[in-house]
C-alpha cells in the first residue's frame, strides 16, 4: 500500500512538473520579428506664424495714390536660411505643409514657397503656390504635399523663400493707400506620417 502511494505521488508530481515546463516559447523569438510593422503615427507641429500689414513688407515706400498693379504687388520675400537645420528623415515619405491664411485686406492675396540653392542662387524644384485668396477669408487652409523628391530638394537647399503678393479683385483697381495698413496673417505647420519601421 505504501509503495503504491509513493509511486502514485511520484508519478503524479513528475507528470505535473513536466506539464508545467512543456511550454511553447516560439513567439518570444524576437529575431523572427517581421519588418515592416504597421505603426505609422502622424506627427504634427507648428513651424511659424506671423501677422503683417502690407506696408511692413515693403522696404521701398510707395506713394499712397499708386494703384495696385494689374499683375499684383511684389512684397519683400521672407528668406529663411536653413544651414545647419535638416528637415529630412528616412521614416517620412511625405510631409504636408499646412498654411492657415487670414486675409483682412480689401484685395486678393497669394503666397508661395521656393527652395533656393544659396551658391547658384537658383530655385530647386517646384514652386508651391497658394492660388488666389479673396479678401475677408479667415484661417483658410492651404496645404502642400512635399513628396520624397521635394524633401530631397529641401535637403539640398540653403534657403526657403516665402513670398506674398497682393493683387486686385477682378478688374477694379485699388490705391495702395487703402491697402497699406490692412493686415494678413499666416500660420504654418506640418504633419507627416512617420513609418516607425524605417527607423528600426
Amino acid at each position, binding site marked *: 500500500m505504501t509503495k503504491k502511494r509513493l509511486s502514485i505521488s511520484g508519478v503524479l508530481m513528475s507528470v505535473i512538473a513536466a506539464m508545467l515546463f512543456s511550454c511553447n516559447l516560439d513567439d518570444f523569438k524576437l529575431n523572427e520579428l517581421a519588418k515592416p510593422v504597421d505603426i505609422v503615427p502622424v506627427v504634427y507641429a507648428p513651424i511659424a506664424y*506671423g501677422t503683417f500689414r502690407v506696408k511692413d513688407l515693403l522696404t521701398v515706400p510707395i506713394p499712397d495714390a499708386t494703384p495696385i498693379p494689374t499683375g499684383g504687388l511684389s512684397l519683400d520675400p*521672407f528668406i529663411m536660411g536653413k544651414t545647419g537645420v535638416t528637415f529630412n528623415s528616412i521614416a517620412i515619405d511625405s510631409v504636408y505643409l499646412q498654411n*492657415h491664411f487670414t486675409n483682412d485686406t480689401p484685395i486678393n492675396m497669394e503666397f508661395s514657397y521656393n527652395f533656393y540653392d544659396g551658391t547658384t542662387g537658383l530655385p530647386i524644384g517646384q514652386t508651391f503656390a497658394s492660388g488666389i485668396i479673396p479678401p475677408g477669408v479667415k484661417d483658410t487652409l492651404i496645404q502642400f504635399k512635399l513628396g520624397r523628391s521635394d524633401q530631397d530638394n529641401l535637403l539640398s537647399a540653403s534657403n526657403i523663400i516665402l513670398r506674398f503678393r497682393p493683387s486686385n479683385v477682378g478688374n477694379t483697381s485699388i490705391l495702395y493707400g487703402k491697402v497699406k495698413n490692412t493686415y494678413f496673417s499666416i500660420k504654418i505647420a506640418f504633419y507627416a506620417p512617420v513609418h516607425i519601421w524605417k527607423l528600426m
Partner: protein
Amino acid sequence: MKTVIGSFTIFISVFFLMGTNHLYSQPNTLYFMKGIPQTKDINPARPGIAGGFYFSMPFLSKIDLSANTNNWSYNDLIHRGSFNPLSNTLNNTFQTSDSLVIDIDKFRASIDNKNFAFESAALTILEGGYKKGDDFFSVSITEREFGELFFSRNLIDLVKRGNYPYLGQTFYSGNFGVNMQHYREFTFNYSHDVNKKLTVGAAAKILFGMGAVHTNGMNFKIASPAIGDYLDVSTSGKVNISGPVDFGYNSSGLISSVHRIPNYSIRDYLTNLKNPGIAFDFGVAYRVNTKTELSASMIDLGVIGWKSNVTRLTENGNFLYRGVNLNNPGQTQPFQLQPIVNALRDSLISEFKPDTLGSNFATLLPTKIYFGIDHQINDVLSFSGLGRVRIMSNRVHTSLTAAANAYLFDALSISASYSLMESTFDNIGLGIGFKIKAVQLYAASDNLFSPFHPAKARNMNLRIGINFIFGDGTDSKKRGSLNPNCHCPF
C-alpha cells in the same frame, strides 16, 4: 526510503531540467491546501501543522513566481503574422505566417483605459518553525522582488496615431511608469489558538531594501486648438531611484548617461543594510462550527525607507510652442533658422529638465487582503472560497477563487481551483502536495494551462517548496479531530 529518494529525484530533475525561468506565481490555491506550513504566508493564523517542527530545504525552501496583466497577453501585441498577398503588395511588406508581427491594433483592442503588467519572484533561503500546544512560531529569510509596468490606452493611441488626430482636443497621457523593488525579508511568525474556535496570528517582517525604482504620477498632456496654431505641453511626475547606479549629466543638466557605481560589487549590493523597512501580516481564523471556518488576513502591510544611492527626479514643466515668429525674426534677412531652432531646443530643455534631489524616499509594499471560507464535507473533501484584494500603486486589484480540496492516502493533498482574476476567467488551478515520511513537496498554481502558452497567458503563477516535517502527526485522522485549529488534513 529508496522510493522517497526516487520520487524526489525525478521531481527535482524535471524541475531543473525544464528550467525555473518558466515558472510563475503567488497562488490563491495554496490558501486552503492541507498540511502545508506555508499556508501561514497567506494567513498567519493558518499554520498548517498540528504539532512538531519543520524546516525547509535550504536555498530551495520555496519559490514563488508570478506574472499577470489586466487581461491582455504578449500575443495581443506580438504574434505570428497571417499571410495576405493583397496587403503585402500594397504595403510592400514581407509578413508571412511564419514571422512575428507587432499588432498594435489588436493590442489596443485588448487593453483597458488603465493597464498594468505585474511580475514578482521570491526565493526563501531558509525557513523553520514549530507548533507546541496552542502556539506556533516560525522564522524565515526570503529574497523578494517585484516589478510593475503601468500605462494608459491613451499612451498607446499616441504611439499608434501620433499627435495630429488630437488637434482641437487636449490629449492626456494618463499616469505611466514602473515600480520595482528588491528586498530581503526576515519574518517572525506567531499564531495562537485562543480557543477551539478562534486562532489569531501575526508576522513581523524586518526588511532590507536592495534596490528600487518608483514612479509617481508621471504624465503629460498636449493641448491645441483645432487649427493647430500652438501646442501647449505640460508634464509632471516623480521618479525615485535607489540602486548602485550613478547618473551623468550634460551641460544642460539633463541625464546623459547611467553607469554602475565604481567599485560597488555584487557583494556590496547584497549586503546593503542601509535601506531598512518593516512590514506586518495579520490573520484570524474562526471556526463557525465543526465543519465551517471563516478566515481573513492582511499581508505585507509595510514600508521601506530608501537611503542609499538615492536619486529623485521631479518633473513639472509647461511649454507653449507656437513655432517661429515671423514678425520678429530677431535679425535682418535672410534670418537663419538654426539659432531659432537652437533657442527652441534650449527652452524645451530648460522647461522640461527634471529637478534632481538626493534625499530619502519611502515605498509601500503591495498589500494583500484575503477573505476565506472553508467547508468540510467529510474527512476527505472540503470546498472553499477566497477573495483577494491587492493594493498596489494606489490601485486595487481583486480576485475570487473557488476550490475543492482533498486529502488522500494520508499523504496526498490536492486542491483544484477556479479563479476570476483581474478580469480573466480562464484560471483553472491545481495545488498538490505529498508527504513521504518527513519529506514534503508541494506545488500550487492558479492557472494550470498558462505555462503551456506563456505568450497567450494573462495570469501565471506557481509556488513550489520542499519541507521536512517532524512530529506533526497529520497522517492521523484522530489527530486532526483533536486539534480543530490545525488547518491540517483531517
